[in-house]
């Protein structure tokens, strides 16, 4: 077992454990903090996959913006949802059954798929840099993804304006 595999297994175990705490922690603020741990583990995954750009974006966008936004949401709505008592619905066993079923289905599908043990193609550090500049050019090139990129920008602007409008206190 190589060192990179050990790093992967540690990061995967940490991320999954943090994910379990996110969905099971009785205190909602603790769940939000565990979410940050989980998101950081995913940034490690991106780094292991040599997607350095996305590792940084994961930390900046998810941990820096989305997780903080969620913590703000928790704190603004805290008083009513008391931190005591069961935080799961009555049908949590059904949810557990459904998610276990999906997991089992995905694993069965993967075990019957030959390409799952494909070898990792070589990528030098200059190749990683090149991939980033390729992505940047593709996102603004009319031959590639400029239209989805602009649509995503408009979606973000619309979502932000809509969020302000919905959350506005009109009293």
């Amino acid at each position: 077992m190589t060192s990179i595999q050990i790093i992967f297994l540690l990061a995967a175990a940490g991320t999954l454990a943090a994910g379990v705490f996110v969905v099971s922690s009785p205190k909602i603020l603790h769940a939000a903090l565990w979410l940050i741990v989980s998101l950081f583990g995913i940034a490690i995954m991106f780094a292991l996959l040599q997607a350095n750009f996305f590792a940084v974006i994961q930390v900046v966008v998810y941990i820096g913006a989305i997780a903080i936004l969620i913590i703000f949401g928790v704190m603004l709505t805290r008083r009513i949802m008391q931190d005591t008592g069961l935080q799961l619905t009555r049908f949590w066993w059904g949810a557990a059954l459904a998610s276990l079923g999906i997991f089992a289905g995905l694993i069965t599908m993967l075990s019957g798929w030959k390409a799952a043990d494909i070898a990792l193609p070589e990528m030098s550090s200059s190749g990683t840099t090149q991939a980033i500049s390729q992505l940047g050019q593709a996102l603004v090139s009319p031959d590639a993804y400029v239209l989805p990129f602009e649509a995503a920008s408009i979606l973000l602007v619309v979502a932000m304006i809509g969020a302000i409008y919905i959350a506005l206190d009109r009293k």
Partner: protein
Amino acid sequence: MIPLSWYLVFSAALFSIGLFGVLARKNAIAILMGVELMLNAVNINLIAFWRYLTPTQVAGPAFVTMVFATAAAEVAVGLALIISAYRRRNTVTADEIDLLKG
């Protein structure tokens, strides 16, 4: 070297954990957190497939960029809705936000 299947199994497990959170949690914000976990599992799948199968093409990273933008929009609107519902109904429990129930 890490086989591709390890990433796929990992993201399948993360997706299932997120799904459980979405289905079983009472608090609406906790449901949003479950959605975040599911979106992240999908992102790992996309990046892993790009890295192992088509490292010279740009479609995988471009798609992940769109997922990031959509996730940010989703959280902003979702939290705004939850805060608005909290102001009007004084609750963030998904069971009690049942205005549309017949």
